[in-house]
């Protein structure tokens, strides 16, 4: 549950980040490193504030939630926004998301416990260019990662294996 992790991260970033401490199994080194609880994922920040990025990752999962896809793939899907020329746009977008979250639930976005309540916040801003940009980018950023395809059963490239002519193109057994 990234929701839990990001809450931990947010507390970290608020209280401890600049001190370079660690807690909850999440490593925070300096002001530019974010790691999920238990070391499930970790990424060095090039430009964004860690708390901004952690919220962006939560937003990505809430837009396209797949419970069998680990956080690291959502991280990879939005890591491209972690660069200097994106800082203003992404920070403004996440700030607006948090403003909406506070208005609706009196919590920052990543502190809202239930997905349905976070989704309410996203619904309130789904016509905003920021939301649409993040959502649109995820269509390729998430689903075009070959590493997630096995989660869906998708087998990808088949030419090098000789196609499926001898590998089950018609192996369905349950249909008449």
């Amino acid at each position, binding site marked *: 549950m990234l929701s839990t992790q990001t809450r931990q991260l947010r507390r970290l970033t608020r209280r401890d980040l600049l001190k370079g401490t660690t807690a909850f199994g999440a490593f925070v080194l300096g002001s530019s490193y974010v790691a999920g609880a238990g070391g499930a994922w970790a990424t060095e920040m090039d430009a964004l504030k860690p708390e901004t990025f952690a919220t962006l990752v939560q937003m990505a999962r*809430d*837009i*396209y*939630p*797949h419970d*069998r896809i680990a956080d690291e793939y959502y991280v990879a899907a939005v890591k491209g926004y972690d660069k200097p020329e994106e800082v203003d746009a992404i920070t403004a977008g996440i700030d607006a998301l948090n403003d909406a979250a506070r208005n609706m639930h009196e919590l920052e976005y990543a502190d809202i416990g239930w997905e349905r309540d976070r*989704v309410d916040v*996203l619904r309130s801003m*789904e016509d905003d260019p920021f939301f649409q940009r993040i*959502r649109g980018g995820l*269509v*390729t950023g*998430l*689903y*075009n990662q070959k590493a997630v*395809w096995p989660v*869906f*059963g*998708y*087998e*990808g*490239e*088949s*030419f*090098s294996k*000789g*196609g*499926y*002519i001898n*590998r*089950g*193109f*018609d*192996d*369905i057994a*349950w*249909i*008449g």
Partner: protein
Amino acid sequence: MTAPFELTDDSVVVVIGTGAGGGVLANELAQKGVSVVALEAGGRYLPEDYVNDEWESFGQLAWLDPRTTSGDWRVAKDFSGLPAWIVKAVGGTTTHWAGASIRFQDHEWKALTNYGEVEGASLLDWPIDPREMDDYYDKAEKKLNVTRTNGNPGLPGNNNYKVFEAGAKKLGYTEVHTGRMAINSRDDQDRLMCQQTGFCFQGCKWGAKWSSAYTDIPEGEATGNLEVREKAHVARILHNEAGKVTGVEYFDENGDLQMQKARVVCVAGNSFESPRMLLNSASNMFPNGLANSSDQVGRNYMRHMTGSVYAVFDKPVKMWRGTTMAGIIQDESKHDPSRGFVGGYELETLSLGLPFMAAFLDPGAWGREFTTALDEYENMAGMWIVGEDMPQSTNRVTLNSEVKDQFGLPVANVHFDDHPNDIAMRNHAYDRGTAIYDAVGATRTFPTPPYPSTHNLGTNRMSENPEDGVCNKWGQTHDIANLFISDGSQFTTGAAENPTLTIVALAIRQADHIAGELSAGNI
């Protein structure tokens, strides 16, 4: 074995585009000894270059030059800069097509006569009798080595087909089979048989599917009469004071403007680029563009009534394995107005890989309603709907002077509104498609909206009367005798069938006509 022709050689036929229309026409003319320069905007990619990866292949093959959209079709909202999923490469969209090769039904050649006037539609009869096409369909089927013709067996049915067929039979459909496909069902014509690889849309790496890129184009080049100039992006078609076309200006691969003289020009750039070229060729003599005294250039854009139905089952299907378009139900393709619409539709299996399924299942959707569907990807089956849509004069390609392409030329804007007949037919097809899958135990179904268009038709249509269309029954423009339309833009109406076989048949027929007219000195 290319035959380099001089830019100043005014004896050549210039064919613009090398797909189902242009590629076949260029070869057929070359076989008859006619000198042909084919100008192709894209590069040359062959089976060894194709990739089994949806987005990577899309980047390699798709026409991605800017276009704009308007109208109430959902594509204008979801894919505003991508009205069509067609190809910019030698071979054109024959690299990407699924391979379905079915003839028009006789009544579809005479849509106005058989359907009657339909409010809001600009229906016409084709100026061609269906019997005139029989021989050319025979030749096209032979060229494409179509399954279930010429003694070719049908392809074996894959998992996706087996679900589709079982559902269809439970509903009592009888015209259900693995299709007439331009995919080898046995090794033939120096091409391998289908290896059930999937990725038909990404270019067939076995060459089992017919594409002009590795059949007609090299055959034409081998005669010494055909030169294909790749990465030659046409800017405009030139004419003389007598109103005859005299040559074609194009940007070569270095971006330099060149001019190839011509005795005859044949336009085959698909239904956006063909009218765009004519409109971009406006002159003092032809201020509304070439061949446009009727104001019909760009109008009556048709894209087939399309849509898809995907369904989830409680057990795996693995629909991506094997031929992408693996079978067809033809029972609904008849004209039966009791269903609440004129014309008919075909149901054909289709699959998308996971990346494209994410993009196209319900564009713009998000949240668990969407992701729980994708979670069941392995258990999905899918079909595509392709039916006759109504031509409307307001559905049209125009120049958008606000947006320029990389050469500074105004781009095509594609305006499309669904006709009420299209909507009624689509709803009927969604209902039937859903029933087919429900009959074999679907736990969830998805009436999926149309993708960016692959069947682009009608924007330079054939007509008996010059005021009703752009070209005559030979594809020869009404206004300019040595200017021809050679692609799907010449379609008067769309019929229910996938258009490639008819485009090819018309190209073979047009080659006979042009060669005859050249010999007779008429053009």
